């Protein structure tokens, strides 16, 4: 018998952190098709279709403007409150969607995962990408509102820091993905965490400077300031606003390092847990 070249070896153990990039690359078509499926099917049999992508953040921002800026008198400085809220809501939604939609990866795809193998990470990655499509459409509407105010002379920005925007967006997406991976991995056996994740996202929003500026917290309630100042999500959203609305420079990049480090740490934890879980979750789910 001739010596056989083994192409694949299945064993019980696996390294703690291994994002098999080559394998995921081999399945890139699947990733793309999942994204297409998610984007195409979400508003099937609706009349407004993808317009719903736009209506959501517009109305949310409108309500926030009425409640937080109108009723609760939150001051947004020279920035028009509606635009201020819209900038926060869009970024936050991207994070929240990535988080909540990936947090039940194993549970939701039990049927497929139980029948056929493909790199499990393709599924949550496809969610991050398909939400990116949604974010793109929403950024367009943001841009038009922005330009309206810009030409009426109400804004000092945008600054050169705009080149950092892709990094900020990836930060939000990967943070959501990481938390989602952690939650979905920890909930295959004990489902307790599912309940925490559901309202945790809502609570986290209030801690992430979505509808108020960070400086305002320092002013009104200095006790909780550290919790918000060191919340990487709040830092990221605040950074985005500085880029949009103020004439900051490229030195803003230094502020980026902190959320970037947090995000990387979260991602590694998420990946390790996901790797550990994906091999045998089907027995315990």
């Amino acid at each position, binding site marked *: 018998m001739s010596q056989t070249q083994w192409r694949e070896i299945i064993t019980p153990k696996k390294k703690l952190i291994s994002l098999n990039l080559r394998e995921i690359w081999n399945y890139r078509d699947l990733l793309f*098709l999942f994204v297409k499926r998610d984007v195409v099917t979400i508003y099937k049999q609706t009349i407004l279709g993808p317009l719903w992508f736009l209506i959501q953040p517009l109305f949310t921002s409108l309500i926030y403007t009425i409640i937080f800026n109108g009723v609760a008198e939150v001051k947004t400085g020279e920035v028009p409150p509606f635009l201020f809220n819209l900038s926060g809501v869009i970024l936050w939604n991207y994070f929240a969607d990535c988080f909540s939609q990936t947090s039940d990866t194993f549970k939701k795809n039990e049927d497929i995962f139980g029948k056929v193998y493909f790199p499990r990470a393709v599924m949550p990655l496809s969610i991050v990408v398909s939400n990116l499509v949604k974010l793109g459409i929403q950024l367009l509407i943001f841009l038009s509102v922005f330009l309206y105010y810009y030409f009426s002379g109400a804004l000092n920005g945008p600054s050169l820091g705009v080149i950092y925007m892709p990094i900020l967006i990836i930060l939000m997406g990967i943070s959501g993905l990481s938390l989602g991976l952690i939650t979905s991995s920890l909930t295959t056996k004990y489902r307790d965490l599912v309940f925490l994740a559901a309202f945790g996202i809502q609570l986290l929003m209030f801690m992430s400077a979505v509808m108020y500026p960070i400086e305002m917290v320092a002013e009104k309630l200095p006790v909780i300031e550290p919790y918000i100042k060191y919340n990487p999500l709040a830092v990221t959203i605040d950074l985005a606003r500085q880029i949009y609305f103020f004439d900051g420079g490229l030195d803003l990049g230094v502020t980026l390092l902190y959320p970037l480090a947090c995000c990387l740490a979260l991602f590694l934890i998420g990946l390790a847990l996901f790797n550990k879980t994906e091999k045998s979750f*089907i*027995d315990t789910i």
Partner: protein
Amino acid sequence: MSNLMLEVEEVSKLYRLGVIGTGTLSHDLNRWWHLIRGKGDPYALVGEENKRTELGDSSFVWAIQDISFQVGQGDVLGIVGKNGAGKSTLLKILSKVTSPTKGTIKAAGRIASLLEVGTGFHPELTGRENIFLNGAILGMTKKEIRSKLDEIVEFSGCTRYIDTPVKRYSSGMKVRLAFAVAAHLEPEILVVDEVLAVGDAEFQKKAVGKMKDISNSQGRTVLFVSHNMAAVRSICNKGVLLQNGRLTHNDKADTIVDEYLKLNSEQLVKNISYEDDPKKLENEEIKVLNVSISPDVPTIEDEVYLNFEVEVKSNVETINLAFDLLNLQETIVFGSGDKFKKNLEGKVHVSCKIPANLLNDDVYLVNLYIASESMRPMYQCAQVVSFEIRDKVRDYAYYGKINGVVRPKLDWNII
């Protein structure tokens, strides 16, 4: 021998029984504590053999244990065994859905598994879109699918509906489309579960033909699980037999099928032993005193008598006594019954003659039903008795098993 494509070495899988709850948490903590101290899994030691019908002491069970075999290129390996013998667990490990507790599997090529047809079909997408999605899930690239698209559509026979959402399809059409995609997979090793059980006869024929084609002309390796021994015989050239999670036989497909059938008949061909399970033979109204076959080992040229003796305990005067005769695939061959008055002792003692030259050489099971005159059910018992009909020495050239549930002797004349 052909090139080795797949090597399975001492693969085992441990499962925990029961519900996941607080008890599992304490086990997890205990296991974790053992692991940090560098000791092995404390529960792996207490795992018991996978015997479905017996109550065990341990809540851990080896679904499969020390399975080793090798498969060469172009081989079609049939994996047979009774329900719960570990076939599906083995397939899940081979297709990487779950990982083994111990052991190694080495493959010399891409393994694609077909444990179910139509995995990941999305009802809102059209047939065409689903071909791409399903194909990609099964491991094909878009380019591969595009080049085979026409072939797939034609094979499925759904050309007219290809741009309609799959939710409008009939269930049969869905299966056809899904199988069409799967049939055009081109992995070096294909793992197939009982997917042939679905679909109509034409479809099954097509599917079996395609599987043969895959192995014969394209030289691919196929692992095939089925309860359909005819399919195993006709598709596979090799086989393994699993029993209680262990691999007991590894041989040619025909031998394995024979072993499997013998295994069943050894356990089945015996008159019920009344001491074993007296409860099963008695309820408030009926007590089954005796069920037997005569002669003991009939051949196909013998008349077979099924004898029933039952005691009617309630004040019902007349009962309907009937039976269904089933083969091992649990297909009902026929049923028969009649009305009987009980005698002075309150018993009914009857016999039914099955004519000679009617049943095939096979193992048959008898389900017993007793009802009142107005057809109110009084008693029933599945597999109350089983028996084997043996073949007679034939005086013509063919010695293989003659197909069919029955084997009536028919008149042949020269005209």
